[in-house]
């Protein structure tokens, strides 16, 4: 048994969203993850962020488009007011298309760098657009931890919910790599995932979770039938967490925090009177 490092804490899952090209949105993804329907054959076009003005919607970078799509989705799923949520934005590689553009332009014509692309190149661009689009003045953070980005992002959201006593939104996403950088930072397709966690139960809680950090290298793998849905994307490690919520059976999901430490999330799905399902 892995050795627990910190006292287990309790949190509640209030809303979720998941987007990948063949499962574009939670209402499509949930029955697929449960094995009740097939993923769509044709990949969906990239989402259009409704939070942005129509002129900005077209020009928004992929990272911003996917992050806003799932952030809005999780808030709708939870019936939550975005302005009340602190947020954690987790992205492994940042906007790989903008990094490719910046590096290529700097190599040829550095004085022609686009100011818009430059300010969209910051790791917190999606978080910035989210707070601007929703009018949210609560703090956000934006982080990365290479292959452990989802685990570290979820840990930070849970830590914030517990230490601040406040609902916290996690938004995790990665996009497709471009150009020569793709050989160093490979990532396929667009994947976005979001979850709202709260320290106390609400009327719309989807699951109760007990979480702790623990030594150990055992990590939960996605179900073989689902793995292909996000395979190759730098945020693929998010899948087992969302499978657990879709399948709704009590279980423990272990996510990597680094080479030797895990985040253990034990899901409990109490019997509900109203029959509501995530």
């Amino acid at each position, binding site marked *: 048994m892995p050795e627990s490092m910190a006292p287990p*804490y309790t949190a509640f899952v209030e809303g979720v969203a998941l987007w990948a090209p063949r499962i574009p949105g939670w209402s499509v993804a949930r029955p697929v993850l449960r094995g009740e329907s097939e993923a769509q054959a044709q990949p969906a076009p990239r989402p259009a962020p409704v939070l942005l003005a129509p002129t900005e919607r077209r020009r928004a970078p992929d990272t911003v488009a996917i992050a806003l799509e799932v952030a809005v989705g999780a808030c709708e799923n939870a019936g939550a007011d975005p302005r009340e949520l602190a947020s954690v934005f987790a992205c492994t590689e940042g906007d790989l298309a903008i990094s490719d553009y910046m*590096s290529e332009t700097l190599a040829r014509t550095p004085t022609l760098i686009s*100011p818009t692309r430059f300010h969209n190149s910051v790791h917190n661009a999606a978080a910035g657009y989210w707070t*601007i689009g929703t009018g949210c003045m609560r*703090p956000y953070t934006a982080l990365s931890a290479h292959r452990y980005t989802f685990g570290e992002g979820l840990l930070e959201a849970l830590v914030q919910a517990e230490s601040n006593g406040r609902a916290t939104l996690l938004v995790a996403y990665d996009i497709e790599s471009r150009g020569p950088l793709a050989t160093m930072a490979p990532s396929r397709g667009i994947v976005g995932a979001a979850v709202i966690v709260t320290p106390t139960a609400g009327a719309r809680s989807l699951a109760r979770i007990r979480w702790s950090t623990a030594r150990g290298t055992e990590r939960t793998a996605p179900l073989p039938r689902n793995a292909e849905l996000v395979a190759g994307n730098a945020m693929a490690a998010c899948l087992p967490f969302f499978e657990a919520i879709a399948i709704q059976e009590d279980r423990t999901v272990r996510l990597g925090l680094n080479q030797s*430490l895990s985040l253990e999330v034990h899901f409990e799905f109490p019997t509900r009177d109203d029959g509501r399902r995530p």
Partner: protein
Amino acid sequence: MKPLRVTSHSIACAAGIGLPALSAALRNRASGLRLNDFGESPLATWIGRVAGVEDVRLPDHLLEWDCRNSRLAWMGLNSDGFLERAVAARNRYGADRVALVLGTSTSSIGATEEAYRRLLPDGQYPEDLRRPMAHTPHSTGDFVRAALAVEGVVVTVGTACSSSAKAFAQAERLMRLGIADAAIVGGVDSLCGSVLFGFNSLELVSPEPCRPFDVARRGISIGEAGGFALLERDGERGPWLLGYGESSDAHHMSSPHPQGLGARLAIEAAFESAGLTPDVVDYINLHGTASQRNDEVEARVVADLFPAATRASSTKGWTGHTLGAAGIVEAVITFLAMEGGFVPGTLNARELDPACGPQVRLSNEPADVRVALSNSFGFGGSNCALLFGRDAHA
């Protein structure tokens, strides 16, 4: 929050490598800025370039992470005895009980830029740069993890210019919940084409050494720096983290809220978390980038919230704007002020913007600094204010 002790800290910036050098530069009002000589076709601006980064040779087992940012991080780790104290803390608490939270805005992107400049005829990376950990945002955190052999939570924070200030906040939460017993925080940002030409494209770069809060200021001087702090629940010496506050502007990607609402919220949250009021603050190290909008807005916020006797200054005339490292650089400067009994003024500024209240000072002054505030505000409207104390109880 329960105060945490900063039991060790270090700095490598243009105004000094190591605390004694930075302290001397501050006292002597010796700027670290120089005419831009970075890259092949340097823009006509001034930069805070750290001397000798190019000559750093990383140990063999760390060459996988080699890039300008890692070399600057290595300089910071090897300054002021930090590396030894961090390793001692790791051995004392256990490698997986020490968290590592580092801020950066551009991380190792300079290495990616170099690879694109030197692409082989078939479009491939040059062989010496085919190292994935030198081409990813987490490069900074992962390099320091490897250098210190820590095994706790390891995260790279990327909230632009508030990054390394927010590292203190994240680390405090991890320690409060018992996920870590100690934390290494800080940040590293190094000069690269992206920031020099990027800020230039936004017309934010000054053609002369930056003059924060000057009525005729002309923009920022970009700098680079690496700095670290070791946070413990207690210790024999060192200043204390008393509180912090974070907020979002919800206004614009590259321009502050016109009334500084986000900045106010962050500062007020810092006082709330420390259980203190603005009148106890002896010194404020301002964000003070010397951009038109930041300084005007920040000056008004400070004039509104603080008594006239509070001293405030921007030290970016010494260091340049070190972006994601600004939080740790300026935290370290407040520590020097507490230990040294003086507050630095605002170097290069000659005539203050009329928006400034009596708090903003041009000259260095002797002062007994018991409590200090450090402001960091970033692109994307990310704000963080840190409160430090010479003693655990102000």
